[in-house]
């Protein structure tokens, strides 16, 4: 099909008000336009009397579902209709089909107990199971010579399983693909064989014990269910299909779309230009474009080049020059330089301070509302969060942090809750650390750290693994030190825990639910804590449900789970949804892809640590490679350094375009010469922008230190923030 006809947004929306059946492809700019288009189409369909249950909306991320429902409800005369529309991710659709049609698939797929129901594994339980498989292998010498934390080995093995599934080829092909593409030392080929063994053992164990991990759910849907009549009948109800962000879909999802579009009365596929940010998770932006040929109509929403977009063009030209030197002039440099402002410093701490000062200045001067400012970084470490938080709080500027949670054990709320769980379960043998008990008391009683330490020291009887009763503490000066109110709260907490101790032992997730519902939830509870706790409960619940298949039972389950958290085996490994962040606050987001997958715009963006290698994603990991494991990769083709380099530049270019598309006024480029550990910062992104700054010399007010040697950038460096521990769920 020819390139789409570009029209202004209002005309495109007008066309979507025509309920004429057919398949429509729309190219949209980044930002909220895609949602706008889909909602208009849904309004049209529902307005034309199409029953909601016939409509399926596929999204790239589940956390946007509620946003959709609310917006749709607000647009309809009968808001209730919005509840009936199926809004899903591809993985959600697949796992729902597996649940519904389990009897159809269980025996055919080779499950050991086809008459028993399946147990769905979460990322954490899959990781736990994989660790049980890998640990003995490591003792045998597997992966010796690789410098990786055990967690990284597990996540890369799970990635391999998922890549086979989302690309729709047999698991057995994984090792073969990786080996055929390897150009390094022949000795390292053994790692791919070892990885292959591990994932096959994992899959066999899952089949034997009716365990369904993400990869298996997708595989079952793609290979066993979809070709069958029952599934066809189930899917045939969706005669109207709308897809947001088709460029973020994986190959098997594209297969499904290609097939299903031919059976629908109408489809709308919205493709966001320059998207496809999650190649590392297996999405295939090129494959998505092929779907355009299956549409009757193709339209594009006009998006003229704005000054901010020229920055992206400039950077991309510079990156391309590294691959194929042209030595040519940069046509957009003059315009681009008017939209950027550098914040440079020798040390990282200094850079963070300057960013904080600038944000405060923007807000206090009235130039910007807090909600118009976004700070993006490849990672939001504690120092960054702490310093920004202190500075912004001092000026009463609201802010929200959206970041990746790496490990549950690093969350005080989780440690504290597990300590209270141990105190509330008389049968548990573990004795919580006094520090955790104090954290637990601080959380449930809303205590400051000093009083929590005082109370913890006085109230915790470590020898007996319990809290002292208020009567036992009556003689101490606690009442005076804590205050009457807190003293009364402690009595309530103690009584509650006593009741738990005396009642029949309950599963950990049930306990946590009650702890949250009866004690922890308060009107002033930080929403981020609420989300974290919900994840925590879900994690404990999933573990309990999987436990029998892991040979754990009874009391063991809760305690084993607590141990796993303490050992760091349970990696929270999720990103807080952007939808959670309030819109009127300064937004701090990491990694960058999280920001890009949302539609939020900002007047002012701060790009932090642009000298960090974390902006330049290395797709190639010791045990996995998303490109080589992609369906379109010709088996046998070598993964050369040149390709590696091009791919990384391509991904960086997409990130830069995506960011620029979300900024309307100015971008602050922030870097420090040295990273926290004192090493020089160096990246192609920094090279591209310092060239812009130094060569054009049009930016005023640059720090005098920049007159020192430029950072140069490094045409060979870079990586993704957490490339190999990403959520393996390809769509959620």
């Amino acid at each position, binding site marked *: 099909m020819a390139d789409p006809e570009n029209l202004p947004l209002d005309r495109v929306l007008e066309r979507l008000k025509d309920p004429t059946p057919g398949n429509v492809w729309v190219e949209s700019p980044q930002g909220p336009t895609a949602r706008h288009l889909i909602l208009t189409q849904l309004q049209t369909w529902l307005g034309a009397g199409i029953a909601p249950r016939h409509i399926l909306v596929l999204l790239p991320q589940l956390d946007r579902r509620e946003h959709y429902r609310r917006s749709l409800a607000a647009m309809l005369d009968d808001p209730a209709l919005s509840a009936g529309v199926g809004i899903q991710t591809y993985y959600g659709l697949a796992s729902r089909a597996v649940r519904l049609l389990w009897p159809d698939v269980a025996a055919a797929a080779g499950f050991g107990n086809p008459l028993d129901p399946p147990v769905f594994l979460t990322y954490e339980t899959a990781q736990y199971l994989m660790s049980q498989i890998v640990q003995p292998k490591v003792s045998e010498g597997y992966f010796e010579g690789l410098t990786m*934390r055990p967690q990284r080995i597990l996540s890369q093995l799970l990635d391999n399983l998922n890549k086979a599934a989302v690309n729709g080829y047999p698991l057995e092909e994984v090792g073969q693909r990786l080996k055929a593409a390897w150009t390094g030392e022949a000795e390292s080929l053994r790692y791919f064989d070892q990885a292959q063994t591990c994932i096959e053992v994992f899959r066999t164990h899952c089949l034997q014990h009716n365990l369904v991990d993400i990869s298996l759910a997708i595989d079952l849907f793609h290979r066993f269910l979809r070709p069958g009549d029952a599934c066809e009948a189930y899917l045939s109800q969706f005669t109207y299909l709308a897809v947001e962000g088709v460029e973020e879909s994986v190959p098997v999802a594209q297969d499904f779309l290609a097939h299903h579009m031919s059976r629908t009365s109408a489809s709308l596929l919205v493709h966001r230009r320059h998207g496809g940010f999650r190649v590392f998770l297996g999405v295939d932006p090129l494959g998505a474009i092929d779907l355009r040929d299956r549409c009757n109509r193709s339209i594009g929403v006009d998006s003229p080049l704005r000054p901010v977009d020229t920055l992206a063009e400039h950077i991309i030209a510079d990156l391309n020059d590294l691959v194929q030197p042209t030595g040519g002039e940069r046509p957009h440099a003059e315009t681009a330089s008017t939209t950027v402002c550098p914040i440079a410093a020798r040390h990282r701490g200094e850079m963070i301070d300057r960013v904080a000062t600038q944000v405060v200045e923007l807000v206090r001067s009235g130039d910007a509302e807090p909600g118009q400012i976004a700070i993006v970084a490849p990672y939001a470490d*504690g120092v960054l969060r702490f310093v920004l938080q202190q500075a912004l709080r001092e000026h009463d500027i609201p802010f929200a942090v959206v970041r990746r949670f790496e490990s549950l054990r690093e969350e005080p709320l989780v440690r504290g809750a597990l300590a209270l769980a141990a105190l509330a379960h008389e049968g548990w043998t573990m004795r919580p*650390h006094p520090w955790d008990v104090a954290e637990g008391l601080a959380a449930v009683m809303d205590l400051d750290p*000093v009083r929590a330490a005082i109370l913890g020291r006085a109230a915790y009887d470590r020898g007996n693994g319990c809290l002292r009763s208020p009567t036992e503490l009556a003689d101490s000066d606690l009442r005076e030190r804590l205050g009457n109110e807190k003293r009364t709260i402690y009595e309530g907490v103690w009584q509650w825990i006593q009741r738990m101790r005396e009642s029949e032992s309950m599963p950990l997730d049930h306990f946590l639910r009650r702890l949250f519902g009866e004690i922890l939830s308060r009107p002033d509870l930080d929403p981020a804590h609420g989300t974290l706790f919900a994840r925590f409960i879900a994690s404990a619940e999933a573990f309990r449900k999987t436990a029998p298949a892991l040979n754990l039972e009874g009391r063991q389950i809760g305690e084993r789970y607590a141990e796993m958290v303490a050992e760091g085996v349970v990696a929270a490994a999720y990103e807080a949804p952007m939808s959670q962040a309030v819109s009127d606050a300064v937004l701090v987001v990491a990694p960058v892809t999280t920001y890009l997958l949302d539609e939020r715009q900002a007047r002012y963006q701060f790009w932090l640590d642009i000298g960090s*290698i974390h902006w330049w994603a290395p797709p190639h990991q*010791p045990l996995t490679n998303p490109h080589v494991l992609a369906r379109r990769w010709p088996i046998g083709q070598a993964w050369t*350094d040149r390709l590696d380099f091009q791919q990384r530049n391509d991904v960086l270019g997409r990130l830069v375009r995506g960011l620029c598309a979300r900024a309307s006024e100015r971008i602050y480029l922030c870097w420090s010469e040295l990273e926290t550990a004192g090493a020089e910062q160096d990246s192609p992104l920094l090279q591209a922008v310092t060239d812009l700054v130094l060569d054009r010399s049009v930016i005023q007010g640059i720090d005098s230190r920049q*007159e020192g040697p430029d950072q140069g950038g490094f045409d*060979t460096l870079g990586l993704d923030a957490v490339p190999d521990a990403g959520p393996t769920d390809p769509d959620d």
Partner: protein
Amino acid sequence: MGVAAVPGSGKTATIAALTSRLLEQRVDGKGPLGRRGRVLVVTYQNAAVDTLRGRIGARLRERGLPVTGFDVRTLHSLSFGLVQAYPGHVGTTTDFRVLDEASANAFVDRSVADWSRAHVSTWGRLAPGEGNVYDERWEGQWQRIARSLASSIIGAAKNRRLESEAVIRLATGEHAQGLAAQLVRIGGQIFEGYQRLVETSGSIDFNDMVRLAVALLEQAEDVTERLAQRWPVILEDEAQDSVPLQEELLGRLTAATGNWIRVGDPNQSITSTFTAANPKLLRAYLERHDVIAVEMSVSGRSAHRIQNLANDLVRWTCDRYPLEAIRARAFRDQSMQLTEVGDPQRNPVDSDGHSILFRQFEHRHEELLDTSTRAARFAGAQPDATVAILVPTNKMGFDVAELLRERKVGFDERLQSSRNVRSVVDTMARALSLVAQPANSRALERAWQSLELAGGDSPRATPDQAPRLLRSCYRPEQLLAPREEEDWVTSDAFPPVSGIDSDTWHRIDRFARRVAKWLPAAALPVDQLTMALAHDLLPEDDLAMAHEIAMFLRRLSDEHPAWRLPELVAELSDAAVGRSLLSQPDEGYEPQPGRITLTTLHKAKGLEWDLVYVLGVDSVEYPATLEDEFRGHQQHLGGDPAQLARTWMLNAADGGQATLDGGTEGRLDTIAERLRLLYVAITRACRYLSLSFSEYVPMGQRTRRVEPALAFEQLQTLYQARTVTSDKGAGA
């Protein structure tokens, strides 16, 4: 090109001038850089990076050129960048950690302990005497020997890119008989355990970093090619300290262009006996037929007599040293020339009296006392001149420091654990202890001290009441977390006291407000907490050290999941642990006129002073014959086991037959290196020089008699002969 530059010949200025000339050519696209190429300058220490950047920047500004187009890196920062950019190629992930020295030592210790437990009879048989039975004293001694043996083998093997298996293989079989081979086997086995610990912790040590960078260039031709395009010219500073891996890395980077300019002085190679550096490398390079060797023999640093003395040392050693093997080994036969009229840096004029003193003391204490008195007097009398005391060991340096402190003389300390570095650890340990125990009044006092340390306050005229007062604080919660609803004053947190001035209360109030902000950071993982506090407490230049502490705590936390902040802080506060962290090289240092510099000989390199005192020039510090006493020497094992094993292993790896046994080789290397160290010491002096030794020196619990160093006697004779000749000449 190879440049052999004598001390004071202006290496840095030459590098700056060369870089500037290359960049001048780049403006027109001429010369080896073309239009986009950059100059890479590789140097040995972080301190030199700043100096070089400053000098090159100044030179470019002078020439009216933009300060851009060059990068200055240490070997490690260069390697770090490469490995971080392409982790998958070399079997690691982007989040690898660089093992700090304390952690690397801890891993060696653990591996030594594991090995020793499993091989009691092996090390038992190595004990002195006939019995070869277990004894406690030998066990302690063996642990020290094994640690030194392992470190030596690991460093040397990694520099030869030998893995532990290869080391063990070298030392196994019929050809590998004798004690040295056995020691290599033991070292190899400990290396194996060490490497396993390193790899599973997801870390790489410094040697690994360079080794992996070399492996990367070897495997990835495209990467090497791109780097060669980026850096068509590489300048290597301090090339005499180059280790084999550095030579290989830079050799590969310049293979295509051939533009590798190595600048160094083979006669100042003073790290070869305890690192993998080898002075033969630069000498061999200078003699290669395809290398243009340039001599920079003119030096304007020292007065004529001092320069003559240094030249005499070289000449005597090369021509007449009693051990023939030393004549060719110690020095490259080169001599310094005086600058000519018109040179901007003319040599200082010889003073009328004796500008060089050879002094002998009866007891070491007298030597130290007399030297510190004279140095203090000189600093007072000549406030525009610089003066240094150079000591051969840190122990002697601590003794001199004590004497200077007693005399209340201001001085800069450049010993192994300089006061500044020690204070960083103390500062952080004290600050963290408050976060760990916020309700503890002792911790409050320690936090006060941490702020004092961080602020570098000069001693107060009157005793400060605040620390004692804080220790008596009985309501820390009122001080650090006052309840908003309560009407309180700072003094309410303390028992009734009188005689406290309002300034003290005011300072305590300020202190409380400041440290209260630290407490919420307790929620962060320990490494991030450390950095967050460091950000508030330390000047930016100390942050790299804080990062070392953070990494150390992080490792402890990973290794001991049950530990919480109180245990981690206790470990950091432990004196021994604190010391093990204190191995950071000093950052850029400039001697200050009128202030004494107290430094080890090794740390004096690269610096110069008007007056230099060189202490302890005796036969123990500067052994001259194979029969002399050597440090680390084990009589019953025939020498220093670490040196024996290292030499044997390197010979075996080369496949050659050593002409001398490992013990003799090692002793010869030591003799040669100590002579070069003396040469470095002498050439630090511009106008005056004092060389001294003592007849009776403390050795452990006793005092023993030692001879002057052979070189001391020879130089004294040669100096007197020159003086007589000169006097005669003057008389004539």
